[in-house]
């Protein structure tokens, strides 16, 4: 973590909370959670949008939305977020589907609508200035509703933000087992800590 105050927590209450959670869970509180606790008044709207997009009502399952997050992280080369969100996705979807999507989503055993949506999200992430209505039309032709594509765009927008500050701040990498345990907590509690 490149900013020490984010790692430690701002204010006595947050410092104690970080220590308490780390003690109870017997693992270092991941940096993503430390950011969520930090300067809450400033980042609150991001937490609210993330909770709504990742856990709110949607035609997409939680597993599919977590897979989208992991894919955006992959396209942005954010190792922390790939590990974190593929771990959660694999609790809701078959592990082989998640792994194969990360390797090559076009050849993965996932629904055609999800594949078409991921193709849109990839272009949106990597070459946003090249997006055209034809890209959206291709997703709709695959049977995805406009409302579902809107939800997917929200997930990808959020993870184009989150992956960037995760890498800029240089989040510490938990172990695979710690990611797994953190994933259980995120499934249970959601993203509503802000």
């Amino acid at each position: 973590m490149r900013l020490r105050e984010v790692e430690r927590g701002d204010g006595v209450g947050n410092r104690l909370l970080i220590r308490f959670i780390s003690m109870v869970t017997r693992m270092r509180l991941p940096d993503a959670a430390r950011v969520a606790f930090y300067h809450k008044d400033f980042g609150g709207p991001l937490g609210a949008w993330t909770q709504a997009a990742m856990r709110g009502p949607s035609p997409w399952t939680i597993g599919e939305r977590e897979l989208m997050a992991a894919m955006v992280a992959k396209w942005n080369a954010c190792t922390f977020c790939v590990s974190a969100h593929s771990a959660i996705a694999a609790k809701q979807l078959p592990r082989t589907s998640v792994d194969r999507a990360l390797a090559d989503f076009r050849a993965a055993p996932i629904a055609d609508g999800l594949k078409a949506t991921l193709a849109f999200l990839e272009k949106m992430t990597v070459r946003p200035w090249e997006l055209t209505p034809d890209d959206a039309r291709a997703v709709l032709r695959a049977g995805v509703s406009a409302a579902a594509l809107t939800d997917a765009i929200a997930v990808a927008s959020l993870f184009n933000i989150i992956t960037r500050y995760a890498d800029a701040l240089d989040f510490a990498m938990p172990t695979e087992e710690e990611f797994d345990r953190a994933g259980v907590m995120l499934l249970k509690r959601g993203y509503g800590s802000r």
Partner: protein
Amino acid sequence: MKTSVQPDHRALAEALRRRVLEGPGRSDPALRRAAAASAAGGPPAEPPYDELARQIGDAACRTTDAHVANVLQGTQSEKAAFEVIFAASVGAGLLRWERAIKALEEVTDAPA
């Protein structure tokens, strides 16, 4: 209470933009807007902030300790440096939100 109504992503995106790029903080909102614009491929922010903002927009995974240290030296406050990093990230993310929603809205009038 849970409802079956889908989130109002447009309102949530606007609330994020307003808070991070216009709201109060330890840093000047004009600096945050400049960092966001630079990360979205717009005009450069003033030194020493532009190098980090542009890096966050182009490839945040290649951010260095020096990028962040230079910003910290400029802001003289970790909270203000955090705000600049956050604002640059939001700038890059909201650019994608706007481009993608525009592409979709040109096909349909579906609410975002």
